[in-house]
């Protein structure tokens, strides 16, 4: 990868403890800060933020509205540069976009002139994967997400839930080892949300991928994640971290909600968020 600044040196000290157990941690964020300048005034958005994402782990990030979650995600993706601090992808600091990282937002961002299949193929096409292979893989991914028979539909003819499934397929078909999702299911109704969460959990866990999920939805955060990170108000810092222990079978979002611990977690995180009427 380009722009790798004597990676080994920089990272080694920070990672010594972690590298003893796991060879390479997919993502480590170290004391990252980011501010914007608005009308000549500097507005700090991210204060001093550190977190990590392990292999095969699902981590949810919740925080009060406007706490800079999207800024954080764009910084992680290399779309914004942090003012200070370090971001290590697989033990390396990189310039630009990290490899093998999938990104998905609340907006499905499907290209209206492409059919569902061609939207899914976008990433493979960009990377120069042979057309026939790209078609096969994309079709298989659509099938896995319950969209068999809709490959040739244009996005405008699909429902919101289906469009978001196509967007998820577009992300997963590239076989990213890490997924960064920013409120991906926020615009869906409860049933669709639950179904797509189930599928996401299944595909991520089966594939041994890591997932960083930014969300407003505390129940979504708890039911999906192994760990929930609660952020503070701006300038954003980590306020609390919860290890979610809801058993080993973690792909049924409705079953998660049945357990007694689930509501405990939800209540504690809600208290942490310290939501007040404004």
């Amino acid at each position, binding site marked *: 990868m380009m722009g790798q600044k004597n990676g080994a040196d920089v990272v080694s000290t920070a990672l010594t403890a972690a590298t003893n157990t796991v060879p390479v941690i997919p993502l480590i964020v170290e004391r990252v800060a980011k501010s914007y300048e608005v009308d000549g005034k500097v507005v700090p958005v991210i204060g001093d933020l550190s977190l990590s994402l392990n292999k095969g782990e699902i981590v949810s990030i919740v925080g009060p509205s406007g706490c800079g979650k999207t800024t954080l995600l*764009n910084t992680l*993706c290399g*779309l914004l540069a942090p003012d200070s601090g370090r971001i290590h992808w697989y033990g390396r600091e990189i310039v630009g*976009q990290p*490899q093998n*990282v*999938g*990104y998905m*937002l609340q*907006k499905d*961002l499907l*290209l*209206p*002139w*492409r059919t569902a299949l061609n939207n899914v193929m*976008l*990433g493979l*096409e*960009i*990377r120069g994967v042979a057309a026939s292979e790209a078609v096969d893989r994309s079709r298989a991914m659509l099938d896995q997400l*319950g*969209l*068999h028979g*809709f490959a040739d*539909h*244009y996005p*405008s*003819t*699909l*429902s919101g*839930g*289906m469009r978001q*499934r196509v967007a998820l397929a577009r992300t997963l078909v*590239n076989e990213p080892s890490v997924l960064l999702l920013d409120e991906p299911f926020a615009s869906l109704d409860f*049933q*669709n949300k639950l*179904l797509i969460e189930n599928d996401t959990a299944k595909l991520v866990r089966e594939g041994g991928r890591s997932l960083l999920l930014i969300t407003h939805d505390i129940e979504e955060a708890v039911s999906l994640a192994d760990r929930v990170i609660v952020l503070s108000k701006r300038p954003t810092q980590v306020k609390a971290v919860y290890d979610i222990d809801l058993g080993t079978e973690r792909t049924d979002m409705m079953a998660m909600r049945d357990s007694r611990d689930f509501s405990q977690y939800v209540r504690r995180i809600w208290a942490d968020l310290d939501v007040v009427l404004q």
Partner: protein
Amino acid sequence: MTADTDNGIDRVIPQPLRLPARPRRQKLRAMSVVLATQIALLALLLGFWEYVTGNDKQAAFMFGSPSAIFGFLGRMALDGSLWRDTYVTGLETLLGFAIGNLFGTLIGLLLWYSRFVSRVVEPFVIALGSIPIIALAPIIIIWFGTGLISKVAMSTLSVVIVALVTSYKGATGVDPDQINLMRTLGASKFQIFRKLVVPASLTDIFAGLKLTVGFALIGAIVGEFMSSSEGLGHAIFKAGSLYIIPKVFAALVATIALALLLTFVVGRIERLLMPWRRIQ
């Protein structure tokens, strides 16, 4: 088909949005009512025109009459001048339209590539866009002569800035989140341009194309007004200076027909190039 057995587990399959399609017959009827009203309105106008000019010789001289206009159309069709003039003006318009849109759109899209260049160029574009093209006609005739090329140049100049501005607006109006998505998928700037910016700008480009049909025609006709030996603008100018008002209108009818035809063709191409918009 709401359930699918996937490993024995019932799994809800999301349904596509199927709008309850309005019955075709009902749609057709609504369209024919509109068309009938339009024809009635036109007939009323022409009837009134014919009636007034039929009873008043001076009015007939000043405004012509529909029957006289159709008479001239018939004569011009028979002596071939209608077809010749329409062909000449049509060719000038088409060439100006094509060249102006080609260069305007190309430059407008390419300006997306460099914010620096687009900032540098902006005041020049605004300055050029604010020049009334008629004001350039004398120079154009000096430079390009009195033949086809000067009319094509006038037509091109009338089109190029509009095409540039609309396509640039389309290119810069692309959702930044969409660009970010392309970047996270590893797209190069050229790939973002080709796979995202160009197709996303098509809507604006076609809006510009429809708009510039009229501009291209104005350019060609104004060019013919200044100096020409054939074309619809020439026919209008000549008939006007000889006070043959119905002939002016007859040439105008041909001009309108030309504009409608070009707009129709552009609409067809739009449907062909943007099939995803037909579905809604």
